[in-house]
């Protein structure tokens, strides 16, 4: 009977721990699939993928299981990256401080390893580099990733939904390349 209980409890703990450990990866893989599916053009969603950057259209979020609890006030863009291709350089527009804006960089396990908001930036553009190389130096800010793959997420608040078109143009000045 003792062995029976040990097998039962041991298996339950093992399975629970395994699922908790791989849970974030399960969701990230769902996000990968949703992003891949969004490469098929849908006229009501507009041009979402541009040069490796995914511009989320709020009207096309509701049917995506990986889009959990999105903030309706935010315009988001995502940059999935794979540092096997080199360090990632990102350049993007920054709005005035009366409007919340931020960049977060997430490892594959979803932990954020870098964040910055517009009140910390002087100027109308922000450029930074993501690398795994701890010895890398640069004259622009560097975010040191601990996993090769990850995601950059930008948040830009709409004070009113009528601002969508102008802010959509604003965020689309973003550029990224591997160096």
């Amino acid at each position: 009977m003792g062995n029976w209980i040990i097998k039962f409890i041991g298996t339950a703990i093992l399975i629970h721990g395994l699922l908790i450990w791989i849970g974030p990866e399960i969701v990230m893989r769902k996000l990968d699939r949703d992003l891949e599916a969004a490469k098929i053009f849908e006229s009501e969603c507009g041009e979402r993928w541009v040069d490796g950057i995914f511009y989320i259209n709020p009207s096309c979020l509701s049917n995506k299981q990986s889009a959990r609890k999105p903030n309706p006030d935010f315009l988001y863009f995502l940059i999935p990256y794979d540092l096997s291709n080199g360090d990632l350089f990102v350049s993007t527009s920054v709005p005035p401080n009366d409007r919340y804006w931020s960049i977060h960089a997430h490892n594959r396990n979803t932990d954020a390893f870098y964040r910055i908001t517009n009140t910390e930036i002087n100027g109308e553009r922000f450029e930074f580099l993501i690398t795994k190389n701890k010895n890398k130096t640069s004259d622009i800010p560097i975010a040191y990733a601990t996993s090769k793959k990850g995601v950059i997420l930008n948040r830009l608040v709409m004070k009113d939904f009528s601002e969508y078109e102008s802010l959509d143009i604003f965020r689309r000045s973003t550029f990224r390349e591997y160096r």
Partner: protein
Amino acid sequence: MNKVFYRSLLPILLGILIGGASFYPFTYTNPISMSLIGGIKRNQWVTHFDLAMKNQNPWLRNYIAFIGLLGSIRPEVIYLEAMSDDDGVKLSGENDYVLRGIPPKSRYWSFVIYNYENSRIDPFEETVANSFRSTIKDNGEYEIILTANPEKYFGKQIINHGNNNFTIIMRIYGPDLNYYEDKNSIPIGRIKKVSPHG
């Protein structure tokens, strides 16, 4: 064969079942996950200051991945989540509620409701109230009505739950940093059931 099954396979199969079942509550907002994951509680509101950070516990990392993938981190934001009214009763799409409170000191704050499947409720434009569009009354408080019948509350700030059972998230972006030092200073909302509608 039966002996092998009962002695070896059955406890393993039951272990797999219980292991999977005990994982499930950490994939959506419910009283079990909200009480087990830890975090900071203020009345019915729960927040996690180490969300999306390297030192968060694996249950929180998993929970956040499932309910709100890629969350902001401290000191960028404080998320507060509630699934019940001031009487401890689950928020229901059958009822109207009034949400009142003092606005937090921050760059931007909002209340947004979601269904139990962690998805937004459509039309999503009507599920949000925020610092830009909410009027503050003479007593310094916002007053937001949660209802499926906005026409009953002409001139009021409305969130339309569309008869969906829901949870509510308060987002405080660019919060006063003192909130992290003194959790009791975070101004949370009060949620009172108004009346059954219909």
